[in-house]
């Protein structure tokens, strides 16, 4: 039996990167203020003193430039981990990521691999307002050639970072600023890998499936607690991996509960939850007792005032309301 450690999401991610750098000299970090400043969310704390400027590289504030340089380094066989201070800034690098990084393997018919990880927090933090609160995972999961994962727990960020570094394809590792301080148990095993394309059931239930990823998985768990008080037994499906998507685990849950609510923080219209809902509709129509419901972020540029911001982000009450509306 392997031991487990109790730690925060942030510490699990930091530990995972540190171990991967120890294991493989080709792994290096690149990003804004990740070295001397220890990272805006302190995810890279302690790495610069250990590995120095050769492997923990502070960049100028030029997202397209460093995303491209890291991509070129990956084409030459190195394994960069690139941090975006927030995923909102990855918008400046989209031409590199979508039009270059994601296309290399296909355009070279497999001759050139691009083992690179782009990671960072996406979604709302606290009152960062319209330009710093984007959920970008749906944009990335739209692109063939990228893999996109959005772990919700310390154990999963620990194991998925390792899987991402080992992957020969570009991976977007999607974090959420609200997750960094949550705690959980993490296997004390430097070789712990969480495979991509595997959803997990975090709470079993028979009445309805609450389907989400990243921080919304915790909202779904909280909603399930509230629903239990109303006598509704909700199952919580943590999607974890958007591309590849483990549709089978989602379908299995829906076929059991016959009802589904898909929850995502991104703008409701056109977000990745809409894709999940569409797939359930296509493949599980005969199993459903009610239309698939979506709970998404309000279709609003994120406002500053806390009361308005909270209005935009889905919470457990919104999920509970959607469940009741279904029944």
């Amino acid at each position, binding site marked *: 039996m392997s031991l487990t450690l109790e730690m925060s999401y942030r510490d699990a991610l930091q530990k995972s990167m540190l171990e991967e750098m120890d294991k493989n000299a080709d792994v290096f970090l690149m990003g804004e203020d990740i070295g001397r400043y220890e990272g805006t969310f302190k995810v890279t704390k302690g790495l610069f003193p250990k590995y120095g400027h050769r492997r923990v590289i502070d960049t100028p504030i030029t997202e397209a430039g460093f995303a*491209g*340089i890291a991509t*070129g380094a990956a084409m030459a066989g190195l394994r960069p981990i690139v941090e975006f201070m927030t995923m909102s800034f990855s918008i400046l690098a989209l031409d590199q990521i979508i*039009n270059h990084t994601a296309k290399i393997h296909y*355009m070279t*018919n*497999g001759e050139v691999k691009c083992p690179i990880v782009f990671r960072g927090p996406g979604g709302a933090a606290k009152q960062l307002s319209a330009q710093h609160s984007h959920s970008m995972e749906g944009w990335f999961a739209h692109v*063939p050639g990228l893999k996109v994962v959005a772990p919700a727990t310390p154990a999963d960020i620990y194991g998925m970072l390792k899987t991402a570094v080992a992957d020969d394809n570009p991976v977007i590792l999607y974090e959420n600023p609200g997750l960094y301080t949550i705690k959980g148990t993490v296997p004390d095993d430097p070789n712990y890998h969480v495979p991509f394309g595997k959803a997990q059931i975090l709470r079993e239930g028979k009445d309805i499936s609450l389907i989400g990823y990243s921080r919304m998985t915790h909202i779904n768990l909280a909603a399930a607690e509230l629903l239990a008080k109303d006598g509704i037994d909700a199952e919580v499906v943590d999607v974890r991996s958007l591309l*590849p998507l483990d549709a089978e685990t989602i379908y299995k849950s829906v076929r059991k509960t016959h009802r589904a609510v898909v929850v995502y923080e991104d703008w409701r219209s056109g977000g990745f939850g809409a894709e999940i809902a569409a797939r359930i509709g296509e493949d599980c129509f005969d199993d459903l007792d009610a239309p698939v419901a979506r709970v998404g972020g309000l279709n609003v540029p994120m406002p500053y005032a806390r009361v308005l911001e909270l209005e935009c982000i889905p919470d457990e009450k919104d999920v509970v309301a959607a469940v009741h509306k279904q029944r």
Partner: protein
Amino acid sequence: MAKQAEKKNLELPAELERYYRDMLFIRHFEEKCNMAYRQGKAGGYMHVYIGMEALAVGWMHTIRKGHDYVITAYRDHAHALLLGTDPVAVMAEIMGRKAGTAGGKGGSMHIYDPKHGMYGGWGIVGGHIPLGAGLAFASRYRGDDRVTLNFLGDGAANQGVVYETLNMAALYSLPCIFIIENNEFAMGTRLEYHASDPELWKRGLPFNIKCERIDGMDVLQMKKDAERIVDWVRKEGKPYLVEIMTYRFSGHGAADNDRQLYRTKEEELENLKRDPIKKLEQVLIDRNIANEEKLEAIDAEIQEAVDKIYAEADASPFPDVDEVYDNIYSDMTPEKGH
């Protein structure tokens, strides 16, 4: 000047003939590509190197092929051919065949051959410049002595990401040569209409990158300049920016069929006098290395070789439809179906 003239005579006859054959091969290969396009055998966007041959020949004969990295934009056939990529595979790629360098998935703009140091073949103007710096970054990281040739056009020299890259190339001391192939036109927009200062070589100055402007229509001078710069970058491990003055005799792309929208016939005729192939021909004759007869024989020989390459590529099959999902990833496919 006298010293330079003396030095100029040092090339061996075989070397001169090699450059001549290479430039002529590219010229005929590209003419064949144009023909293939007109006949509907090649599609999409296709950009040929006619008129600019001396530039790529000078640089590719300078670097260590298969060791150093080369990356360029979509006017990429010549770079691959000169690095040693199988010309049938290049032609097959242009014709969308399975035997192409990317199995027909890339096309004319996306010729790759990493075994020979050719890293593309990119379609977004200026977009590949950070990738090239990334290849150089890998050399710096590993401490190897590879040099990266990072080609871009005069149009690309205005893209923002190019400046982000120049800054980082200098900041991280990357052994990367930024080679602006200034053919005077960003598609159909003349240099003076797209660049606030048409002396593009100066764009290395703000980043403390050594930079200069040189002529790219004389292959012998090109070769000398390339040698000097490659040696310096390999030794110093620092970036370099060079603006090379050239001229494309053809249109921007195969679909550009009205060059007179942006330049006159008189201007074209004037520039044809700078034809690098004609220029070297004169050198070969002046130095008694070849006479008219021999030059004609070489031309016929190369034309025949290109005809054979084309025929072989044209006889090769198109990709199988079920290959469409292959190599999106190294280990999986996305959701299938429409």
